Every structure is written in C-alpha cells, then in structure tokens.
C-alpha cells in the first residue's frame, strides 16, 4: 500500500491524541467501529455553551489511514459549531488525505465518530436540562 504524504504525516505526528473525561458535561464522546472489524475510533469533542467545538481529541485502533482520518477530523472540527461539524462528510477527509478506494471506509468511520460525539453531547445536555426542570429539584 502506498500512502499519501498527508496520511504519513498524520500517522507519524498525529494531532490531538488523548482523552477527555467522558463525564465532563461539556464533552461529547463518539466511539465507533468494532475490534473484530479491525477498526475502532474514539473521538471526543469539548463543546462550549454556545455550541462551539473548543477542543477535540482522538484515539484510534485501525490502519494508518484510519489513524490519519481521525487525526485530521480533530483538526477539522475545532472552532466549528456543532451543526457545522455534524455536516462534515467523509468526502472532505478522502480528498484531504488522498485516500484510495479501499480506505474510504476509514473516512466513513471518522465522519461517524464526529456525528456520534455531537449526538452524545446533545443527549447529555438534554438529559441534564430535563433533570434541571424536574419540579422540586434544585
């Protein structure tokens, strides 16, 4: 497999590797893929009250293209609103990293991870809001 320069660069110098506390109320966590399929991505977004993504981190088990896709995804989402991030399509990742057809699913996974993280954040915000609106609760 010949890798593009950009895939190699992300693989060698991955951006934003790490984890946030998943219980932090400003953090949304997306975990997609499965170990038996050979790829699992965890993408975490730190989102402020205005719905702006302030920071992002990832950890990925997968091929070099999967690592590069998630690394690039963290760069891509930073500073975006959750709606903008939710609208990101895998094509953008494919183009940036020049992924060959057999590696397109790695970018699909990264798109899924972004969406899952945003949804997780929304779900938790809504749960929190419901909790706060329960009568009698401080």
């Amino acid at each position, binding site marked *: 497999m010949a890798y593009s320069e950009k895939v190699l660069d992300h693989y060698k110098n991955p951006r934003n590797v790490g984890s946030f506390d998943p219980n932090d109320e400003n953090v949304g966590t997306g975990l997609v893929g499965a170990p*038996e399929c050979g790829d699992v991505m965890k993408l975490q977004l730190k989102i402020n009250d205005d719905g702006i993504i302030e920071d992002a981190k990832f950890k990925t088990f997968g091929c070099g293209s999967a690592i590069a896709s998630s690394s690039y995804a963290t760069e891509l989402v930073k500073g975006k609103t959750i709606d903008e991030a939710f609208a990101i399509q895998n094509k953008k990742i494919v183009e940036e990293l020049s992924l060959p057809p057999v590696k397109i699913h790695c970018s699909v996974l990264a798109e899924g991870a972004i969406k899952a993280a945003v949804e997780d954040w929304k779900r938790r915000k809504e749960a929190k809001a419901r909790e706060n609106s329960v009568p009698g609760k401080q």
Partner: protein
Amino acid sequence: MVKTPIYMDNHATTPVDPRVLEAMLPYFTDVFGNAASRNHVFGHEAEAAVEEMRGTIGAAIGADPKNVIFTSGATESDNMAIKGVAEFYKERGNHIITQVTEHKAVLDTCKELERRGYEVTYLPVDRHGLIDLDDLRKAIKPETILISVMMANNEIGTIQPVKEIGALAKEKGVLFHSDATQAVGKLPVHVDELGIDLLSMSAHKIYGPKGVGALYVRGRNPRVRLAPLFHGGGHERGMRSGTLNVTGIVGFGKALQIAVDEMESESARVKKLRDKLETTLRDRLDEVFVNGHPTLRLAGNLNMSFAYVEGESLLMGLREIALSSGSACTSATLEPSYVLKAIGVSDDLAHTSLRFGLGRFNTEEEVDYAADRVVEEVNRLREMSPLYEMAKSGVDLKTMAWKRD
C-alpha cells in the same frame, strides 16, 4: 548501525544466494540450449545440466530422480498433483481430504474440483495448527483417492505429523500429497520414510530463483499416475509439456543442495535468532501472543499478535522492516487471515498479528534492531489505541456493545 530496509519476510520469498546466481549465470548465455534438442551439443549440455539437477533434487528428498518433474513453482505443482490425481483416478473415487490451513494453491484447487463434482473434506486444526489423526482416519472412505496435507505452514510455521499421515494413507490405500514448499531445505525430507506419494516444492523459498519448482510423483509402490495439466511437446515424460527452464532448474538444484548441506547449522542459527526475537518481545511487551505451535514450528517463523494494535498500522510504523501481517487491512479481501481464524485466534487479535520470517541472511543486529523498533511502535500505537485504554481501565472489550457499520 544496521542497514535498512531489513528483509524479514522469508516465508514470502527469499533472495537468490550469490552461490546460486553464480551457478546459474553460464546457463543464460553459454549453455542456453533447449534441453529437448537431441541433435546438437547445445541441447546435450542443457539436458545434462537438467539431469544433474534432477539427481541433486531427487537425492535431497530421498527420491528416484526420474520421479522429479520440473514445474513453474509450487502453485503449479499443487494444481498438477491434485487435479492430476483427481482426473486420473476419477473411476476409483471422487473424494479428497485436505485441511483448512493449506496454502490457497491447494485450497482453491480443491474448491475448483468441488465445482467439477468432487467431494472435498477440509479437516479442522487445533489451536496450534495441527490436524488430528483420528479426524483424518474417520474422514477416509472408500471413495477417497487423495489426502493433501502440507508439511509446514507458511503463516504460522506449524509442522504437520506427515509421517503418521503417510502411514495412515498407505494403510488405507489412499495417495498422499504434501505441499512441502516451506519445508524442503529446512527440515529433513525423505519421501519413502515419510510415505509421501506426491510432494510440491518451489525454488524461491530456499534462496533459488522464482518461477521454478518441482513435483515429486512416486514411481513404485504404488506407481502414481497423473493426468497432465499442460499438453504439448511431451516433456517430462508427458506429465508437463513445455521447454524446460534450464537456468531456473540449475538455480533450484544448486539452492537445494546448499540448503541440505547447511541445514543443520543454518536452522540452529535461525532458530536462535527467532527465539531471541520472541523472548525479547515477550519480555518487553505485555499482552503479546505467539500464534502457532510452541515447538513443532519452522525455525525462522514467528507469528505474533500484539493486542490492541492493528497490524497494518504497525507495519506502517515499521516501514524499514519488511514483514507481513494477518490483518484484514493489508489483504485484498479485507478479511483477516484464514489461517489465524482456523487456529481459533479471534478476529480482534488476528487484526493485530505480524509474521516475522527469519532466514539465511538475517543477522543478530537486525533482530535486535527489529525488536527495539517493534517495542517502540507497539507502545506508541497503544498510547493511541482506545482499546488499550479501555482494557487498562477494566472495560471488558468482549461484552461491549460495539457500533458496527
């Protein structure tokens, strides 16, 4: 400093030994005749070289040289043995027994025969990659015409109980073919002692050239008959038509001669390197697993799973070391290795496996370098692995509900 890139994929192929190349060179330019040209000295010289090599190869496997048929390699030898027997003995029966970790050259040939109406039994293997002789005994029936079991596996190096299989085949009157591509020149092979009726070999796995190999076809007790794959000039006693690859045959003979002469010292040296690599990796990394048999394994083989690190990404970090992986991401089919699956390695671990194939030209410095680099990359990628993080924090990865796409 070691010189990179380092070649550690000697199960895939090997470089031509300089001594082999030297033996081959005159046959490109000076002794270039067609070994079938009976009426001039060019042909005679070529024929003499071929017959000398047939003698060398026969001697190396304990066979009568005239029963060595030259082919283009083990894929052809496997096809010729299995299809040839199936076709020739179809009146006697239509059942073939093989096993699940065979090379594709055997498995796909058997699949083709199934399409042609033959019945094939694929014996399972245990977690070390060995077939069970009782399974084999039970699988044999009156219609069985051939058993095909490899001598040593190309991914995990497991060495099958060939001698016992040969004895059983003889007892039952069934022909026995063994794909010995990974074994000849590395293990002692004697077709009579092992009860082998057909044996596939290939030169490029033993420091000879690519594109040449042989099939041994027993001539007596019993005399094995084959329907040929190739028809034409009637070369190789009509079993394999086509002008002989004289240069390749000379290289093959020379390579096998060297391998047999140096087998003892070379396998001891290679095994020592393999054991050092294995011990170092085990000592310096947690959660690594050796795939294959602890002792019945080719000296140069080390197939290891590095939990939580996907194999292709690991290879990418080890680009200056030529290795192969059982990961799906490196295969055209996106399926993890069927051999690892067959020995019960779960898919998640199969994705994390690397195959090291050490050989004649590897040095201790190279092994030390490779071990250091593997440890470094595995640690780096584990830092990046959500699975490692989850496992370390006590999450049971097997019972997690994964979002599969």
